[in-house]
Every structure is written in C-alpha cells, then in structure tokens.
C-alpha cells in the first residue's frame, strides 16, 4: 500500500512544519507583526548546524541548542532595538520593516555563504525503520520527534511559566497587561526572540532533510503562512495541527496531481481558508 508510505512521509514532514510555524504564529498572534525574516532565520539555523557538523563534528540534533540560543539573541536584539519603535504603527509599517530587514540579512547571507545548495551528509546515519509496507530513515523520524517535542515545550512554557502567562496576557490585551504591571516592550522582545529561537531550532533539524541555501527562505516563509492560516493564529496546538495537515496534504497532492503543483495546492488552500474559515481550523479568535 503506497498510501501508508505517503501518509508516513507527510506526517514526518508535518512535524517539522509544525516547528517552522510555531514561532511565526506566536509572533504574529502576540505582536501582530508578520515576521518576513522568519524564513531567513530558519536558513541561518541550518547553516549553523551545517558548519557545526562540518568543522566541529557536532551533530545537528545538538546544534538545535546553539542555533536556538543564537537566534534568540538576534531576535531579542532586532525587536528591542528596531521593531519596538514602530510596534504601534499600522500593519503596513511593521510588515515593510521586517521585509527590509529580510532583504538585508538574506543578501548578507548570500554574500557570506554563496547561493549554492549544500547538503549536510551524516557520517553515521541511524539506519532505517521498516514497519510493514513503510520505510523511513530513522534520522528523519528522530528529527520529527525532536521538532514536535520543541513545539510542545514552547506550549508548556506559554502555559506554565510566569513569562509565558505574561506573553498570553499581552496577546489578549496589550493595554490591560501593561496596567497589570507587565513590561510590554520587554515581553515583545522575549516573544520575538522565542519566535526566532524556534526558527533556528527548526533550521537545525531541517538541515538533515532539505538542501541548504539562502534562496530557500521564501519557501519556508510561504509554508509558515499557510500553516498559520490553516491552524489558526497564535496558538501552538494550531501550528501542530496545521503543520501535520499541510505535510499530509502536500504528500498526497504530490502523488495525485504531481509535485510541481505542491505550491499551487497549498496557496489555493490558503486563499480558500481565508475566505471561508478565516479563524483557521483550530482558531477561536476573530480575524481582525
């Protein structure tokens, strides 16, 4: 049965997609900022994993920590020094700002790392899983597991920690949170940092699945858009459901309509969902 294999491929891909979208969704939901930089952050995470492995021999699964930490710092800095200045401006302004930052960072990465597609080849792959009709490299399954674990940890962080509760409070009502003594601009910076951290971690995990190049950032960003809309904004469970759904839809779309239509399918889906169910499949909040 080919369909089991396709479903398994889709779910493994979907776990990684969930990790891609969780940070993006958090930033969009809490700060009301569409972070165009997200795709470039992911690619930066992949490069950190690639260089760590090639020069220091550090496994990409461990680079998740360094890439996440480094990207957190970058994200925190970008938000506190730049985006916080225009956070109250209309949508167009913050969108244009992150677009400009993305042009800047992506171009610098092109100059520094070149546009060549590179591949991280593991010296000692874990082997493969054979489960009846399904074949799957164990590395990918481990990457998916880690991705879902990270996304789950983010969810717990938002639920259980003081910082997490403050972030949720800002998402619900910025002014009220401020009146309750929450330092909103600090929470903004932490939230953006967390978003970037998730991007960096996802990038490290993706480095063993996807070829690495600065040119990939647009593709990752596009996926994050679709997943966010699919799962509903600002909710981590929504990102998981949306990610898994997109992975499965892409896999089945590829065998039914051909892989060249994958982008068309996912973006058509995006427009349709925006029209008919703007709060997303899991979302509860309004769409304004």
């Amino acid at each position, binding site marked *: 049965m080919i369909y089991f294999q396709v479903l398994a491929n889709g779910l493994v891909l979907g776990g990684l997609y969930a990790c891609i979208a969780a940070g993006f969704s958090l930033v969009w939901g809490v700060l*009301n900022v569409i972070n165009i930089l997200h795709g470039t952050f992911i690619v930066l995470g992949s490069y950190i994993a690639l260089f760590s492995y090639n020069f220091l021999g550090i496994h990409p699964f461990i680079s998740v920590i360094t890439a996440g930490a480094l990207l957190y710092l970058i994200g925190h800095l970008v938000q506190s020094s730049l985006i916080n200045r225009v956070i109250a401006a209309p949508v167009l302004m913050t969108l244009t700002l992150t677009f400009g930052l993305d042009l800047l960072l992506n171009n610098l990465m092109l*100059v520094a790392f070149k546009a060549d597609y590179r591949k991280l080849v593991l010296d000692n792959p874990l082997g493969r899983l054979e489960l009846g009709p399904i074949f799957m490299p164990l590395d990918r399954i481990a990457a998916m597991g880690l991705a879902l674990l990270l996304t789950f940890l983010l969810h717990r962080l938002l639920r259980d920690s003081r910082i997490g509760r403050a972030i949720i409070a800002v998402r619900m009502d910025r002014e009220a949170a401020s009146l309750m003594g929450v330092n909103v601009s600090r929470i903004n910076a932490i939230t953006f940092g967390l978003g970037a951290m998730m991007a960096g971690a996802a990038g490290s995990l993706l480095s063993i699945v996807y070829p690495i190049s600065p040119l990939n950032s647009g593709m990752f960003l*596009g996926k994050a858009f679709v997943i966010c809309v699919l799962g509903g904004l600002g909710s981590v469970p929504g990102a998981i459901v949306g990610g898994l759904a997109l992975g499965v839809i892409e896999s089945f779309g590829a065998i039914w309509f051909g892989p060249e239509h994958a982008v068309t399918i996912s*973006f058509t889906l995006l427009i349709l969902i925006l029209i008919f169910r703007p709060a997303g499949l899991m979302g509860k909040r309004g769409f304004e």
Partner: protein
Amino acid sequence: MKHWLWLAAFVAACALVPLFGNNYALRLATIMCLYAGLALSWNFIGGMAGYPSFATAAFFGLGAYVSAVLQAKGVPFVAAWAAAGFAATIFAALIGMAILHLKGHYFAIASLAVVEVLREVVNTAEGLTGGGMGINIPLQGMSADVQARLFFFVMLTMTVVLLAATIIVSTSKLGFGLRCISQNEDAADILGINTTFYKVAAFSLSAFGVAIIGAIYASWVQYIEPPDVFDILYSVKPLVMVLLGGLGTIFGPVIGAVLYLALEELVWRNFLTVHAAVLGALIVALVLFLPNGVGAMFRQWRKRPAVQS
C-alpha cells in the same frame, strides 16, 4: 486646478528627455514612468483605501502574460495591451470580492498568495505560456532607436492617464469614500458608503493600471518568464515608493518613484553584489525615520519658525 498645472509641468519635463537626453537617459525615463505608474496604481488601494495589497506583482504578471500570449497569436499590440487591462480588471473584481472583506495582515497574506498561485499556474500551463521556458514576443519591425522612443512615450502616456485618474478620483466621491474606509471602515459603512463596492472599484482600478503597464513592459523587453514578471519585488517596490512620497497623496507616488529610481540606480551602480542589502537598509531607515514620506518632512520643515529664539 493646481493639480492639473503640476501634471502639465510633469509631462513637459518628461517630454524633454528624448530631445536632449541620450539613450541611457531615455531608458531611465522609461523605467521612471513604469515605476510611477505602478506606484500610482497601488496608491488607489494601498494609499487611499489603506488596504496593504501585495497583489501588484500578480496583476503585473497577468497583464504581461495576457498580452504576450495574444501577441504570439497575432493580435496587434495595442489591442493586446487593452485586453490585458480588461482581463486584469475582471480578475481583480472577482478576487477582490472574495478577499477584500479580510483586514490587515490577513488581506496582505491573501493578496500575496494570489501572486504565488498565478506564478505557479503560468509556470505549469506550458501549452499556452511556454512554462518556465518563458515566452518571446515578436519584434514589430522597427529600429531599436524608434522602439526606445515609442515605448517611452507609451509608458509616459500611461503614467499621465493614471495621474489624471488619481486627480479625478481623489477629488470625487470615490476618493472621499476610500479615505473614509481607510480611517474607519465601520463608520464609513454606517454613513451609507457602499464599502464593498468602493474597495472592489479601487482594487480593480489598481489592477487595470498595473496590468497595462505589465503588458507594455513585456512588449518593451520582448521576453518574459514567470519568475521575472511575477517577482514579488513588483509588489514591494511601489509600496516603498508610495511610503517615500507620502501615502494617499496625489503626487507623492510620482515623487517617491523618482527618488526611489535615483537611489536604486546609485545603489546598483556602486554596490552590485549587496544592492538588495542596501535596498533593505534603506527600507528600514525609511520606516523608522520617515514614516510619513519626504513630503511630510518638507511640510514640517517649512512650518518651523524662521528665527529660533
């Protein structure tokens, strides 16, 4: 009346270029008219109505491809351009009715998705469009010199038409309604403005201008491919120009286009490998320091007391 005088002055200044300038100046002036036209078109929906549309690249590519396919089938170019304009207007009206009820970021994303979908559709419809191979638009049997002049005047005409349309719209009921929508859509609705109709009208008008410019562009460069004409930068550049010149104003988009082109030309020439980075830094600086455009800066500067005590 003052607006029309400025319009005449703009036309006169542009018409002087082919008389005195060399071919480089002529090419630059053509690009300037192209940019100004795109910025003016975007201003209807993005500036006046305040809807952050990223669909400009979709209309640009659609116009370019409709006219290219028609010309490849033997339709004369002027008819093909007009057909491109009407096709995009109808397309924008249909898409607009579906996505213009979304607000803020959601509208931005939906309009961005329109670009991605159209690009992939054109990419995969190989029988009609040549797919990734692109499409050649046959020469019209003129010398290169005559062609350069022809396309400059055509582009200039289109810009003037759009500028005139901006003046008319902005002083009419439509412009008033769009500004109301931009300030408070619910209030506009309650005051009896048919917001859906106004938004769709602005979106379609914007698409009409962009598509014809795309069609002229395709004939001008004579070869188009999907990543070229559906480039997302065609959505972003007009937006930056309008921000530079002043959102929702009449001459702001033109001033923004001139300034942007000057900066772009300077950056391209001096920083070839990092031009995108410099452009990015410019956008960042613009948002942080000049959010209301250069026009507002000058107005503030004039209001300053002459002698400071």
